[in-house]
């Protein structure tokens, strides 16, 4: 394969409060059965990439558990496959900083890979993108680097925190800014040849840089030919509890759901051996996504139920996100709530959050 992948989680903060107390953002459950990282990995493997490295720094236990040897994405191969690369600081001569440390410490990954090009991405941009198309664009324009962006129709609060691109008519990137009112949202994904990547890393470390993209690419736009590639499909950014909540519920828009999950490329995740969801007599479920293994006897509206959730008779769940194996007992009422995994809501409880500010209950709580 001509491209190898790096999923760089180094610059992603623990942006989801309770949901990221014990896991990194990339491992946060999303959309009824996925984790955020599934989208970027699936997009990569769908494009035929089979050397994929994950640069992770903190709280990666649950991420490693989820990814395993990469079997769900056919990455459990004899050569190449999935490499989870936590930081390693054993080299006393190492003067690298920031995410450049990761590049520096894992030079072997790049040297050993056969690919000539590297695609580097974060995990917060949910999309179903054809990376081959971006790669062809990269070759055609003979760019040094191709960055991927989404032109959003309407700027939402979560876009505020994203970097933006200013481009020329020919699609060349002129500036990478933090401007609030610019619709060209940079998706934290770029393609670069391995040769140039290694040169830039070396140069960056020698000059005290710490953030590879910002210091070595965005600050060098005059010296480098950086092209912009526009992604035109469905897109969400998850970088706050609000955006997490809103974009999960966004999946209930049938067109959005269809485009994200039923295009030619499918999004894959670690499989579980759950039986089909079971709807009992009297169940009342509308406008919801339901994972396998759920047993529903109560009412569920505009909600997302992950795998193995139990909703007992007399329970009412509205506008909520209920993660794996939660149990909602009878005569309860929840609205605008996010329950992390294994939460039990006992008889007669009422939890009402605000649409703008959903109520988040951390893992394994009994309420």
């Amino acid at each position, binding site marked *: 394969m001509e491209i190898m992948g790096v999923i760089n989680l180094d610059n992603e903060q623990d942006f989801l409060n309770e949901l990221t107390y014990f896991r990194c953002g990339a491992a946060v459950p999303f959309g*009824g059965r996925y984790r955020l990282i599934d989208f970027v990995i699936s997009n990569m493997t769908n494009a035929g990439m089979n050397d994929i490295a994950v640069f992770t720094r903190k709280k990666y236990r649950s991420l490693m558990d989820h990814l395993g040897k990469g079997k769900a994405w056919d990455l459990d191969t004899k050569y190449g496959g999935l490499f989870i690369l936590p930081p390693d600081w054993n080299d006393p001569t190492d003067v690298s900083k920031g995410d450049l440390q990761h590049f520096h410490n894992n030079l072997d990954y790049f040297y050993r890979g056969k690919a000539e090009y590297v695609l580097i991405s974060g995990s917060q941009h949910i999309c179903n993108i054809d990376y081959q198309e971006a790669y062809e664009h990269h070759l055609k324009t003979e760019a040094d680097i191709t960055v991927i962006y989404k032109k959003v129709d309407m700027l939402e609060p979560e876009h505020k925190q994203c970097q933006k691109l200013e481009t020329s008519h020919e699609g060349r990137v002129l500036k990478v800014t933090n401007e609030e009112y610019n619709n060209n949202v940079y998706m934290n994904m770029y393609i670069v040849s391995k040769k140039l990547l290694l040169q830039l890393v070396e140069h960056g470390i020698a000059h005290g840089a710490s953030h590879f993209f910002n210091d070595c690419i965005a600050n060098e736009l005059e010296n480098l030919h950086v092209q912009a590639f526009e992604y035109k499909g469905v897109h969400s950014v998850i970088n706050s509890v609000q955006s997490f909540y809103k974009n999960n519920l966004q999946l209930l828009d049938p067109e959005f759901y269809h485009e994200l999950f039923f295009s030619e490329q499918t999004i894959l995740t670690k499989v579980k051996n759950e*039986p089909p969801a*079971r*709807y009992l007599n*009297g*169940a009342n479920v509308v*406008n919801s996504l339901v994972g396998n293994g759920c047993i529903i006897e109560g009412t569920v509206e505009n909600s997302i139920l992950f795998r193995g959730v139990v909703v007992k008779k007399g329970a009412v769940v509205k506008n909520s996100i209920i993660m794996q194996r939660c149990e909602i007992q009878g005569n309860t009422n929840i609205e605008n709530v996010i329950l992390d995994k294994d939460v039990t809501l006992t008889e007669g409880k009422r939890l009402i959050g605000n649409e703008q500010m959903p109520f988040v209950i951390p893992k394994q709580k009994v309420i």
Partner: protein
Amino acid sequence: MLLAGGEGKRLELLTKNLAKPAVYFGGKYRIIDFPLSNCTNSGIDTVGVLTQYQPLVLNTYIGIGSAWSLDRKHGGVTVLPPFQAQDRGDWYKGTADAIYQNINFVEQYNPKYVLILSGDHIYKMNYAKMLKYHKQKEADVTISVLEVPWEEASRFGILNTTDDLRIHTFDEKPENPKSNLASMGIYIFNWELLKKYLIEDAENPHSSHDFGKNVLPSLLQDGKRLYAFQFQGYWKDVGTVESLWQANMDLLDDEPQFNLNETGWRMYSVNPNQPPQFISRNATVNRALINEGCLVDGNVDHSILFFGVQVGAGSTVKDSVIMPNVKIGKNVVIEKAIIGENTIIEDGAVIRAEEGQQREITLIGENSHIKADDAVGLEVTKGV
């Protein structure tokens, strides 16, 4: 040794291109998942699957056995089709012959005991318990039995035992049953003894090479120690369209006898990896099992939807089993039917038994295409 070569004629269209053990069941599974999962859960890690009829789907499905954790360095799952050897070669002529032809396979592992299973029953059973019982009784053969209602006993192979469950006679479908202990077709043999009898049986030109008809009776005749192991719990032979439909419907009870959600005895299956099911704003879903990848925009009542099924707006699916990737259009009515996989049902079609139809359950074969004006009688096969 799992006997999975059955043609399953009585499942009609459902086994046109499939061996019976590969037929879909329970919204997600194929019938063979149940004995294979029972093996895994019982700690049996060496399994031979004997295939013969339409083996393609079954072979592909079993693969290297990873779905059931049977992808092992030593043992694991091996698919055993009939083969041509230098001096002989034949189809499997009977259950005993199938094992006889694979003596070499079994010998590789030098086992003390061999468990013989069939691949067409829905049940959960701990074979380790049965083996423990077999050892306790110092038996030569242990046969798993089920107490059936007396009035149905004449449909089964009936075992007559003494009080301590030692088998003295065996009646195949007796007119006047003396016992209601029916054989479930699950046997544990001491391998050395079985090997001897299989070789003898193979040399006998008058034998039909069947366990029930030949091998077990001659063991009994020779005074060997045959014991019955009593099984309690749900067990269903899903060999007919009616029983397949009924066993599916049994899963929909509020407290089903056969519980797929039990975490202590999981049923494993090849997972399709599809997005979570979407129940739309206009949908109603009641008493149903629905798998991932389904899009429900209509009404589903007392039915089972396998993965990737779409139910259009205004459509009603009642008392039915819809196999994978069936696309149901708008304003369709489906009642008491089994719809084979990849079938397309156009807007406005009505599928239900008409008055005077021989059978209540309407069966539609895989890859069919049903138009609104098609009169759906007893069976429909169209398309590919």
